[in-house]
């Protein structure tokens, strides 16, 4: 009888053979030197999740009870024909610690803010999903010792991560619209929709594949969401069209998430931080200076007064800022000199997209 696991290995093997002319046995052979005892070999990434193409690599985790040494955060690269094989070697206690940290993050009200990898690398998010959803091509299954089911933790973490990104993007979109920065407004509105869709897809129990696979996944795995995305795939041009676009994005994401996402609702949790900057007036020149970044901004008299009037801090709560203070802070943020922070994260019980697993065996 063929098990789900056998079927997944067969499908993976077929994809690797089709795209690269390489057998999984060759992969096992080339990474064999990394295995201690009966270390398991798990394959994650696009090829393991039914995505990928001839340019896709193979992401492998080597881990087990006997694993002695872990590798660095950077993968160990191997090449077989056209196939790149990236390997991370991890001790079991490190995997356990990562899942426990994820579990603690989920139980906390604090925002994630990159705690599980920055937007580019997303290292911990990917690693959690490789362990939870990876295809075991050799060795025993990895079982959690100190946390609940690996897949539940990995799924919930991803839902929350993307929900928090979604909130951030849609708030920025509205601030950009107010500042008449239409490209930034439209781009962030689209990010907000994409992040919301990623959160919904994750809530259905599908493993993590980063944003580049989103549209393929909408076509292939979640066709009911395909039409949700279509109106946001191409950005509008001009102020009036961008305003409509942003409003439509907010409306759509509110439906998907169950959250209120208008700027007034979001501002109570948001604040600005710009610790490097200080105002140094010199005659008519009102210079806002960051020696650390080698950056200076010139403020007009009203902006300088608004800056001086920011209370204490930072951080400065957005809800307490005047219009001109918000505009100054937004411009600094748009130029990389201020951060937008959140007082609270988005625990799953605040989201309506949480925990719907339609295909846990995938």
């Amino acid at each position, binding site marked *: 009888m063929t098990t789900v696991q056998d079927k997944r290995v067969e499908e993976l093997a077929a994809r690797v053979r089709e795209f690269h002319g390489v057998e999984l046995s060759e992969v096992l052979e080339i990474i064999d030197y990394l295995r201690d005892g009966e270390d398991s070999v798990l394959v994650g990434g696009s090829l393991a999740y039914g995505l990928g*193409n*001839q*340019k*896709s*690599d193979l992401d492998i985790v080597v881990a087990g009870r006997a694993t002695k040494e872990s590798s660095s*955060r*950077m993968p160990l*690269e191997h*090449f077989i024909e056209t196939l*790149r094989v990236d390997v991370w070697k991890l001790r079991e206690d490190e995997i356990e610690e990562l899942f426990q940290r994820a579990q603690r993050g989920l139980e906390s009200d604090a925002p994630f803010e990159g705690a599980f*990898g*920055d*937007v*580019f*690398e997303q*290292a911990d998010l990917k690693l959690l999903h490789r362990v939870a959803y990876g295809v075991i091509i050799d060795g025993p299954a990895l079982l959690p010792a100190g946390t609940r089911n690996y897949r539940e933790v990995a799924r919930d973490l991803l839902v929350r991560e993307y929900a928090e990104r979604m909130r*951030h*993007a849609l708030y*920025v979109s509205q601030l*950009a619209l107010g500042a008449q*920065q239409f*490209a*930034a407004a439209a*781009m*962030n509105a689209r*990010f907000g929709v994409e992040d919301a869709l990623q959160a919904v897809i994750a809530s259905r129990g599908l493993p993590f594949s980063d*944003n*580049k*696979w*989103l*549209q*393929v996944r*909408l*076509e292939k795995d979640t066709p009911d969401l395909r039409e949700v995305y279509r109106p946001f*795939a*191409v*950005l509008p*041009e001009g102020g009036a069209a961008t305003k409509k676009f942003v409003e439509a994005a907010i409306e759509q994401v509110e439906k998907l998430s169950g959250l209120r996402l208008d700027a007034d609702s979001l501002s109570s949790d948001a604040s600005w931080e710009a610790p490097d900057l200080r105002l140094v007036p010199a005659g008519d020149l009102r210079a806002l200076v960051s020696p650390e*970044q*080698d*950056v200076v901004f010139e403020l007009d008299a009203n902006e300088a007064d608004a800056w001086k009037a920011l209370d204490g801090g930072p951080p400065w709560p957005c809800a307490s800022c005047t219009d001109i203070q918000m505009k100054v802070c937004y411009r600094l*943020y*748009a*130029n*990389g*000199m201020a*951060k937008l922070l959140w007082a609270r994260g988005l625990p799953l019980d605040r989201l309506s997209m949480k925990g719907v697993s339609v295909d846990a065996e995938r």
Partner: protein
Amino acid sequence: MQSVDLGARRYIWCRGQAAWLMGPPAAQWLEDLRGALAAGQSGLARHVSRQLAEDCAVMLALTLTYGRPIPEPNMRGAWALERLADHPVGKDCWELIRGLEELPEDDVLVERCAMLQQKAREVVGHVPDALTPEGYYPALGLAREWIELVSSVGESGFLPSEWTRGTDA
């Protein structure tokens, strides 16, 4: 000899960021685009062409206008486009970042993206692709030289923090 009429810190920081933060991904996007088109994955092709244009826009903004610092990822595209508003390549970048209503023929799209990448490379310089067998060691060697250069003007490195975690102590 050519003098650089800009502070050494800013000049080297901007060039380093353009070459290392944006250069390797832009090279990878073009490969991803070819893979997507060969597999008939139009959604992937759309995303990849958009990302490639955004990375090229950021690289060009860094090296043509020497803007510093770079804003967070969700603001980078808009930041770069604003700085390239008067540059002919800004329009090319915006059209791809905006998203294509209809995908052109495969070779037309590849050519369009390759041309954008080439324009960025002409300004930024070539960085070997560390994700290929032939580029791996040359990229490591070049990275080592760049780390020495940015250190010489008192700047910190440009490698992603997750590459260097644990090495700062």
